[in-house]
């Protein structure tokens, strides 16, 4: 039981990032895979905050919170399913917590494989499952300081 517990804690650490995900963080993640010489193809999804207008009000930022313990369990399940479904070498999922401003990155999914065939589909699968099944909550903040709770479409 102890080792499973630590494994989960480790996964939690890896997933959530305080504030925006920086382009340099993406570069570091890519660089870490250059020693893996059986990888031929990477696919990366990045979610960026749009400055949408809602009823004439401009969105400035999203503040994210999460039920982290449940998120860690769910992400573990999603990862296992993706490894079973697709032929992947590595898989990484990162999501912001706290405030992320328009133009900044909040979500980073990274899959690697020997060949390119399945990487696009694997990324799409992970992105969709994280968005629909992982308990993360976004609060959209407007320039006026008003807010509304984000709903995924």
């Amino acid at each position, binding site marked *: 039981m102890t080792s499973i517990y630590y494994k989960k804690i480790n996964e939690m650490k890896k997933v959530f990032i305080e504030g925006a995900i920086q382009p340099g963080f993406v570069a570091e993640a890519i660089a870490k895979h250059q020693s893996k010489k059986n990888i031929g193809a990477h696919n990366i999804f990045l979610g960026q905050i749009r400055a949408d207008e809602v009823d004439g009000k401009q969105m400035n930022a999203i503040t994210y919170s999460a*039920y982290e*313990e449940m998120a860690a369990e769910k992400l573990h399940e999603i990862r296992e399913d993706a490894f079973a479904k697709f032929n992947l070498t590595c898989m990484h999922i990162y999501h912001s917590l706290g405030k992320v401003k328009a133009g900044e990155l909040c979500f980073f999914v990274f899959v690697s494989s020997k060949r390119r065939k399945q990487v696009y589909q694997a990324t799409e699968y992970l992105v969709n499952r994280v*968005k629909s099944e*992982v308990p*993360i909550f976004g609060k959209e903040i407007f320039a006026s300081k008003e807010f509304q709770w984000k709903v995924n479409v």
Partner: protein
Amino acid sequence: MLRIKYFGVMAEVARCDEEKLALKDKSFSSLISALHEKYAIYNLPVQVAVNRKIRKQNENFNLEENDEIAVLPPFSGG
């Protein structure tokens, strides 16, 4: 007494992230009734998780003292 965690808009409805609720018995249906009485959750798009698993609101089973209970609005990551 059961400890209940609230997330997202539900934490604003409950005006707290976590609270203790006294139930008449330890059944899941009593919990759902108590949450509805206090926060009208039948009218909210929320789900209830017990020990990190979503349970249907019409399920019936017994809860234990240190079960981890959470009321969750729609997920909106990404």
